[in-house]
């Protein structure tokens, strides 16, 4: 299967797994943010427009489950999708350091934008949501993302 096809399959699979873990099984924060991982993986394979569109769709999925700050996830995921695709033109690399940084910063950016968009009355303190949970979530996402890249071999194509 072509790499782009594999990435799409992986994105859909991760999105379904995310919804199953977070909504179906109600595991909560113990489960990684696979939706952001899927978006970051996909964004490196598709153009900025399509990555932003995928981010918007993923964000709407999350917003549908929390009407109190509708739109915050949509904006956060759209921004992350677009920026993720931009990194393809700016940074060339598949080193472990780059991949970990990419996922950590991507997830942290998603949490930061969400924190800004969610509004003062609803958001948790910056130190809790962005600094602590954002960075821990980023590391968790990086672990999962790097493992997935290793298992699927998507990131190895450049070395051939």
């Amino acid at each position: 299967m072509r790499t782009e096809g594999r990435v799409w399959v992986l994105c859909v699979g991760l999105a379904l797994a995310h919804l199953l873990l977070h909504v179906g099984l109600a595991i909560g924060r113990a489960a990684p943010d696979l939706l952001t991982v899927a978006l970051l993986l996909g964004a490196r394979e598709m153009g900025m427009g399509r990555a932003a569109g995928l981010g918007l769709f993923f964000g709407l999925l999350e917003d549908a489950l929390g009407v109190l700050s509708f739109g915050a996830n949509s904006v956060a995921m759209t921004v992350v999708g677009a920026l993720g695709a931009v990194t393809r033109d700016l940074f060339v690399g598949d080193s472990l350091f780059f991949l970990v940084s990419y996922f950590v910063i991507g997830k942290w950016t998603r949490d930061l934008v969400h924190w800004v968009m969610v509004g003062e009355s609803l958001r948790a303190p910056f130190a809790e949501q962005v600094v602590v949970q954002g960075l821990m979530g980023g590391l968790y996402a990086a672990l999962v993302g790097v493992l997935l890249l290793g298992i699927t071999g998507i990131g190895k194509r450049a070395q051939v």
Partner: protein
Amino acid sequence: MPAYGPGPETNGGRQRGILAATFLILALSTSYLPASVQQRIAWSMRVTILVPFLATQDRLTGAQLNARDVGDLMRQLDSMTALSSTRAVLVEENRDLRELLGLADRAEPSFLPATVLRPGTQGSERFFFVDVGRAHGIYEGAPVVTQDGLVGKILDVREEISSGMDWTHPDFSASAMLQDGSMFGLVENRRGDFREVDRLVFDGTAYNEEALPGTVVLTSGFGGVYPQGIPIGVVDEVEGTQGRWRKSYYLRAMVQPGAVRHVLVTRRPAEADVSALWLADSLQAMEPASGEGRIP
């Protein structure tokens, strides 16, 4: 990461940029859509893509409850066997009293049992679904309670499912009073530095009166959202004073929303005073020793 081909053409890059900007504007606009449109978008996703996941949680919650119930039932059976002979008279008396008060008849039409579903995603921590809706007589603003007290209220009602917020939401507020009706005020949510230390505050009470720790605080029925008599919490300590005319108290909440799986949802026609439903069970154990809720 993926291989990189030749650099993007200018036109293609511009098109992708325009497309991304369009999606970003669309995403931003969703925040400013009217609430009804936002609800429609959210519900359209819940009844299509998200249905299997919400149904999975519903079934899983049911299975967990059943599994737990079996253990509980076994333990209860053992205890009941030992106690049944001595309790028989009390049970009969209790049944007579309940029939006398008409408690069951009053409670049943006003409250409907429901299962709570939690979305479990970021930004939805104070939000829940219940598996009852307009078809069952549920209405927007309907109080959601457990056997211990107030959980929150319903925000949006659909035919078979409703969504609501619990008391940890910053917009939560309820007119309240001490159990003996001697002091009135407003119960609000007070955010802690971390979510785990969110607390309820009984605010706006008279400075020259003091509520005793352990006194039960109930909804007062003012404002028309919550009927009178639903337990909210018990007085814990003084939170602060404002000048020499107002005092507020921290409450220990009766209900920890995160642990709630089954609730009762008020349905029309709502009762104006439901205190009798709780007074007989949970509140007596929490009354202060003096029996007096305040010190003038």
